[in-house]
């Protein structure tokens, strides 16, 4: 795991400055092949900025972003501001950045359950349909690295679970690395290999368990979030030793106590 050759993208002490202030600073993490890395943190904390810096959309003010040579990226942005003057069917949108056969387009759309939208105009899709089309388009590229910025915005709860399942399947089938921003702590715990908590700097990072047990996490997300995690992990009825290196014993103990309070 520590060999560098399966690293797809690596941020090394990255900082992004805009309008005279630091949006994020001292951000370091790596996304490896077959790994799902999730960015969590409060709104305005710089999650999207971090992703944009990693992708080269936003210039880095300090530090360095290193990408594997010939890295093939599939990107699912948070939203798509399509000008009304631009006619665009879903089928055409699927071939936006790389050519694809009609069969490949249909297969990708079927995977996210929106093959029936193929002939519709992108602007006429509902929020949930658009998100699924965006994900299908990104995976159609058979990317080495999938980057998703809040991929379940506008998707109903049942659809949310399905989309996260698809993201996991993508990782297994394409063997790609995944970098995503998510608010869904349930998925973060269940589906993620590595969690990076960003609030203008990295508060904590590590495996989901390790992060959930840090004090910073508890302060950011509050007891309710901890309760949800506890419900999932059943952390309260037996003692886990922290499986990451991020949190110390004190933090873990505190996390465990709050955990219990949240449920009572």
């Amino acid at each position: 795991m520590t060999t560098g050759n399966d690293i797809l993208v690596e941020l090394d002490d990255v900082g992004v400055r805009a309008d005279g202030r630091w949006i994020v600073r001292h951000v370091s993490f790596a996304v490896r092949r077959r790994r799902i890395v999730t960015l969590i943190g409060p709104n305005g904390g710089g999650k999207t900025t971090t992703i944009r810096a990693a992708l080269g959309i936003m210039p880095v003010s300090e530090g360095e972003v290193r990408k594997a040579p010939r890295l093939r990226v599939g990107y699912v942005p948070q939203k798509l501001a399509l000008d009304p003057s631009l006619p665009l069917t879903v089928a055409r949108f699927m071939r936006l950045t790389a050519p694809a056969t009609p069969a490949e387009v249909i297969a990708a759309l079927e995977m996210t359950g929106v093959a029936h939208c193929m002939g519709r105009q992108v602007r006429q899709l509902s929020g949930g349909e658009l998100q699924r089309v965006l994900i299908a388009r990104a995976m159609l590229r058979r990317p080495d690295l999938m980057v998703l910025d809040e991929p379940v915005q506008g998707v109903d709860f049942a659809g949310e679970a399905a989309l996260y399942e698809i993201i996991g399947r993508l990782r297994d089938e394409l063997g790609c690395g995944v970098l995503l921003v998510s608010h869904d702590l349930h998925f973060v715990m269940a589906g993620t290999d590595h969690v990076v908590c960003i609030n203008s700097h990295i508060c904590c990072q590590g495996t989901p368990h390790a992060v959930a047990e840090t004090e910073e996490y508890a302060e950011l997300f509050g007891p309710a979030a901890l309760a949800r995690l506890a419900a999932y992990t059943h952390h309260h009825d037996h003692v886990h030793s922290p499986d990451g290196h991020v949190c110390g014993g004190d933090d873990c103990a505190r996390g465990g106590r709050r955990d219990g309070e949240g449920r009572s």
Partner: protein
Amino acid sequence: MIEPFIMRAVLAGLAAAALTAPLGAVLIWRRAAIAGDALAHSALLGVALALFMGIAPIAGVGLVAALMALAVFMARSSHSLPVDARLGVFAHAALAAGLIFIAFTMPAQGDVMGLLFGDILALSAFDVWLTGTGALVLLGVLALVWRPLLAAAVSEEIAIAEGLDPRRAVLVHMLLLAAALALAMKITGALLFTSLLLIPAAAARAVARSPEAMAAWAALLGMLAVVIGLWGSWKWDAPSGPSIVMAAFALFAVMQTAAALRR
């Protein structure tokens, strides 16, 4: 019996319309229609420069328009003025400067109206050949940058993230516009150039379901406007450039109405 000068006007007009319409469609998608105006308004300055230096007007216009294209490409919104307002300021300054320099450099019998509105009935056979060949070459270059250009119009973020170079494609598009302006100067003049860019593309929007269809429809409608406009100009002895623009506008109105009725 079609007079040869009418034939030349039709052929050159068709070539110019086939070139400007797809370029204009991209301009509309990028919400950059004002950039076309900025370029067109700099054309007189180019003619004045050409007269002053003793070079061909097409070279002078191409040179100045290319510089304007670079300026437009690099223009950014400041805190107090959005980019379209800044371009508007520079466009009209360029037009005024052009008119002043023309007044000093133009020979007494020169035709300023021809510079502003074109003189499509006074084209030589060479003009026709140049417009046709130039249009083909420029459309070929447009085809080369089409994918990143369209991706930039849909989502610049996706284009950059997935390894395309949308900024370069946008720069190429701006330079293509400058070259198209130089080619079309004798046909549309400085002030009617933007109309050939925008009106056919706007008319095509009503029927097109994909970007490529809109570009193709725009070219078709632009060419139709040239034929109808020249016919009307011949029949009623109206000025030819403005007649073409009015024909394009009539087609726009028809397409809009048809689209509204179908809904």
